[in-house]
């Protein structure tokens, strides 16, 4: 007879801890990515900050190493749309940290443009940055994770992968994010036999420095009340509201969850 898992399992708080694990966050130098990098460090993981801007990477890495003791923090410059750079960066992370258990593929861009005015290069840029990058990063990471028989991949998707935002038009962004949710499902089933778990996190409207700037513009003033009126909680999320979901999806506590999407949106999708 097998042991009762309830009485023989570690405390759930120990299973939510990331102590001793090695993690990376792409787009880790600002906004949601920076918040997730902080949370990983708070939960005890060593963290690699990956971003395009070296100064921003360094600033966040320094912030984290000064705040949380006993963990290792590294930072690497990488354009996640360039296959060679992605492969080299993942190799470098594994070399410096020794292994890779957790990867948060979060880097992305945004743009508002009506579809009839959208250039093909604008479409391609969006798909490359928000969807192709997720594929490139995950496949490079999985090569290591499959070998070690364990890994946790978390994609930053969006509620825009499930609905069409209003009033701004962003068909390319929404399509890319829907693609990310689908990619997580596909990779989860492909890699389930190897112990690699793939899930996505879908934030709703989130207060980032980018949004703060936007709110100062005329169009931001106009759209802001529209957005709030469609959120049951009547507030936007803070980047810190996304940390718990990211840590849960990266921890042992979610090892039976794969191919799913965790929505943190103040109730937006419910309406």
């Amino acid at each position, binding site marked *: 007879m097998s042991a009762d898992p309830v009485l023989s399992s570690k405390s759930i708080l120990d*299973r939510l801890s990331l102590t001793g694990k090695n993690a990376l966050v792409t787009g880790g130098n600002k906004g949601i990515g920076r918040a997730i990098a902080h949370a990983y460090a708070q939960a005890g993981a060593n963290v690699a900050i990956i971003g395009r801007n070296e100064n921003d990477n360094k600033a966040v890495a320094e912030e984290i190493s000064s705040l949380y003791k006993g963990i290792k923090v590294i930072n690497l410059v990488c354009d996640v749309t360039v296959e060679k750079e992605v492969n080299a960066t993942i190799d470098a992370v594994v070399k410096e940290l020794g292994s890779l258990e957790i990867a948060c593929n979060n880097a992305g861009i945004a743009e508002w443009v009506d579809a009839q005015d959208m250039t093909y290069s604008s479409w391609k840029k969006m798909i490359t940055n928000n969807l192709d990058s997720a594929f490139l990063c995950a496949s490079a990471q999985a090569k290591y994770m499959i070998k070690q028989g364990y890994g946790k991949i978390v994609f930053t998707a969006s509620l825009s992968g499930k609905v069409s935002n209003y009033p701004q038009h962003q068909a390319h962004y929404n399509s890319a994010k829907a693609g990310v949710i689908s990619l997580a499902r596909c990779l989860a089933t492909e890699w389930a036999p190897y112990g690699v778990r793939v899930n996505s996190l879908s934030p709703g409207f989130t207060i980032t420095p980018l949004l*703060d700037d936007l709110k100062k513009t005329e169009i931001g003033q106009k759209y802001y009340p529209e957005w709030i009126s469609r959120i049951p909680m009547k507030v936007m999320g803070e980047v810190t509201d996304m940390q718990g979901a990211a840590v849960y999806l990266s921890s042992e506590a979610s090892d039976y969850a794969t191919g799913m999407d965790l929505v943190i*949106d103040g109730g937006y*999708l419910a309406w």
Partner: protein
Amino acid sequence: MVTKVDPVLNTKSIMERFSLKGKTSLVTGAGQGIGRALAHGLADAGADVAVIDLDLNLAEIVANEITTRNPDVKVMALKADVTNPEQVTNMVDEIVKNWGSLTIACNNAGIGQWVDTLDMSYEDWQRMIRIDLDSVFLCAQAEARHMVKNKYGKIINTASMSGYIVNYPQGQAHYNTAKAGVLSLTRCLGAEWAEKGIRVNSLSPGYTRTSLVADLLKTELGQKVSPIWLSRTPQNKMAEVTDLQGAVNFMASEASDYMTGSDIVVDGGYLAW
């Protein structure tokens, strides 16, 4: 101009936000299976737990187990039939009377039954809807009537992947429909109570090795269906009840305060195929 405080540098550590220390909770159907595991998980994180079951004896056994594993939390065992409005109200009143508050409620009690729809009696149907769906409405309403006073509360309903898909090969149209109802009710209440500080979310487990299921797997029928279930689960195994604790602890904690009307699926990838 007022500079906005950076939340990343001014929010408690995520591990502190996962803690449930000092919070009061209840779990219905906690005498066994998933509910028992959820009650233990909440206690692991420091919450006081009311173990609710139709069978008081089972509830008391689990309450004692929790005290042994987590001696610092308060525990009570209560008997309640969650399909009875009066007993549900009394259950919440009893907890609030003893502990002064109720912050976390896991509405988990439910039953399963396999029966083909052509053979399903109306009594079968009604019993299922009453126990698996009506009970969630009754419990959530009674809990929220208290939580609304504190402008804070976390309600977590146990739904199921069966609320999204039709299980195979067993027939259970009433169960699947009831669980789809729980998903919808969760969305409705999440939106309705969003401005009152009450968060309502659900958990959708896949096939889970509860003791009831473990017994079933030893029967001839269990031997027949189990390979079919596994072949449709990408992870090729069933969940242990402990695999569900993390999602519920997260939804019970401050770390999920911006989440409402949402569902966490923990199914080994079943829905992805």
